[in-house]
């Protein structure tokens, strides 16, 4: 009973992660500048990476055909999801800060940029 519950929850999280990665892939290609693409990318890293890995850990806890290594797989999956949960926002923050400070990516369709008004390109295309 409890094994079936774990497996169904985990499979639901894996399917949710697949949907989130699809949304993130569409968003990464449709948004118009780097900072908006970063917004879509964090969907792909939290909803699309942390949740399905934790779900895979739940599946491994309840899936008896894995044999004696099932708890090992569950533990490694939970550790990986926790690492991604901590490290992916830090990494994207560092990347965005460097891109804005060194003027690598302009703010192209811009309303207001309080940090550096000279990077604000109003009404830009593409």
């Amino acid at each position: 009973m409890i094994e079936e519950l774990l497996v169904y929850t985990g499979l639901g999280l894996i399917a949710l992660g697949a949907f989130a990665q699809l949304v993130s892939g569409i968003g990464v290609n449709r948004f118009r500048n780097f900072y908006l693409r970063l917004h879509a990318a964090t969907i792909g890293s939290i909803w699309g990476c942390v949740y399905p890995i934790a779900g895979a850990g739940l599946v491994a806890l309840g899936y008896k055909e894995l044999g004696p290594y099932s708890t090992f797989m569950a533990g490694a999956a939970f550790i990986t999801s926790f690492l991604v949960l901590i490290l992916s926002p830090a990494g994207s923050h560092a990347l965005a800060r460097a891109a804005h400070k060194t003027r690598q990516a302009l703010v192209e369709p811009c309303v207001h940029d309080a940090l550096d008004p000279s990077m604000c390109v109003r009404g830009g295309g593409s």
Partner: protein
Amino acid sequence: MFVQEFIAAVVPLYLVATALYLYRALKGPTIPDHVLGVDLLSYNLAVLFIVLGIFFKEPILIVTAIPLALWIYALDIYVAKYLERRVMGA
């Protein structure tokens, strides 16, 4: 239970997302866009390692995902540091 059938039905969605990320990683007009595309490709690869490790019942596949997650962070930090100060290294 239907774990293997369900995973076989879900994995193509991850592969479509891989193709979309790859397009952005190759095209990306600025350097941070390339790095963002490579980041997302690596997160996608980490999820695929773990999900396929359950699909094939191979526990060794799951060990590879932990260093991969750490290397993605290292790539972000290296690139950000290089862009800001023009020095390689930590």
